[in-house]
């Protein structure tokens, strides 16, 4: 009985989590943020903001994925930040 309750609770939690995840959307204000703004806001949350020319464009792509696993930024944020850093690094 206890195991069944545990299973039901786990399934209910998984369902709520899945629905929550599926329903998560950014507000207009957040969605319209530029890569430069997100770079300034998110990086300093843990460490100093990196200069774009610290790495090459290809390296920023890899570091972007690495940072998504560590800081758990959203994928949209990662893409915008990486694009900004790649463009700035190329200048």
């Amino acid at each position, binding site marked *: 009985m206890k195991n069944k309750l545990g299973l039901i609770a786990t399934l209910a939690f998984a369902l709520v*989590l899945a629905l929550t*995840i599926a329903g*998560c*959307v*950014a*507000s207009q*204000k*957040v*969605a319209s943020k530029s890569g430069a703004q997100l770079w300034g*806001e*998110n990086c*300093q*949350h*843990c*460490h*100093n*903001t*990196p*200069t774009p020319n*610290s*790495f090459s*464009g*290809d*390296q920023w*792509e*890899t*570091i972007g*994925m*690495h940072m*998504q*696993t*560590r*800081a*758990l*930024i*959203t*994928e*949209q*944020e990662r893409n915008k930040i990486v694009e900004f850093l790649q463009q700035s690094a190329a200048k």
Partner: protein
Amino acid sequence: MKTIITLSQKHQKLTVFIALILCYLFTLQAYAQKNPVVLDSVTEARITALEKQAALHRPGLSHLMVVGLTTFGFASGKSTSNDGSSPIKYSAFGTDSYEFSPMFLWRQGKKVLLEFEPSFNNDGVGVNWAAISYFAKPNLIFRGGYFVVPFGMYTKKLAAGWINKVATDPIGLPTAQDYGFGISGGLPLGSMKWNYDLAVTNGLTIDPTVNNGTLTNVNLGAASRNKTFVGRLGLLPFSNSSLEIGISGMTGGVSNGNTLYQDVRADLYAFDFNLVRNVSPVQINIKSQYNVINVGTATYVNPIDPTKSYTFNNSSTSGYGQFSLRPIESQIEFIKNLEVAFRYGQYNTPKNSTWGSNTTQTDFGLNYWINWRTVLRVTYEILDSKSTVDQTLFTSPVPDVKTQAFHIQFAIQL
């Protein structure tokens, strides 16, 4: 009428002219296709060489790079105890602050990332991280391998020497890395954000080398089916991501096959807080984490008389609060690169155990940022430990100890 005739004649002439031009262009194109432009051998060789050069620099689907970190330092300190013995003075390079950890990041396309971080530090050679991540969905990453468990914020995000604000780690942080499998992701929530990081790992066990109720990682020596479930939920309530608050939990059996502890479980939870705000002309940085470790009741062998046993309430708490300030808008470059930091921590281990104590940790730090990832820092630290052990478990009294140390540290992200 005359005007209309004139226009019509002009039209005809224009049409004939355009037709002739088109015929000429078509003929030219047909000729060009039949007789392509012949390049001289020097130009051809140059083009081939450029094409080869371009191919060399074209990004592939795989990408391997090395980042990482190193910290290097010197510590000098004095340790005094209340048992009447002489103070112990020490000074050493690398003490408590040496680490060389290259990190290999290997990306396969946009879905797979391997992270491997071997480390040479105060404990010798080890591995900090060896995991593979699969980016399944925009908000879902699967991870497997050896990784820092998602418990609290400090260990996973803030522990690196070039990120930390003082030379040492806060006291009393629970387990760091473990083998396991997990899922994580970050998601928008209107103007807020939230993130989740959940894992199942080999987990914890009562340390079999001392058998006094302290916990250690099972690592690869898992001798039972007990697994530990661990996770953290984070919320960033402001749209500028300046604040993150997190709650973590960890639970699992700690017997690892030892029948003495087969019903003993460990339940841990933590709260963390991270605020970084630029309030002109300074940057304010406040970080904090509070941890609770509860281990179920068990009996342990008396270290003085093995025929007897003893027990205690195996509950520990730890926490720290850290404040740092940097004048980021100063016109003077030297001042702009300075940062002052203060941290206060407390770690209370179980009373009447063989390792019971109430310890406070106070740190004063001054950092100079050479660039965004390189820092030179000095830290003065006071560790004040009051023993709460059961003195009957020892042949001689366990004293209170106070340590004062001065650290100079250089840290860089590679």
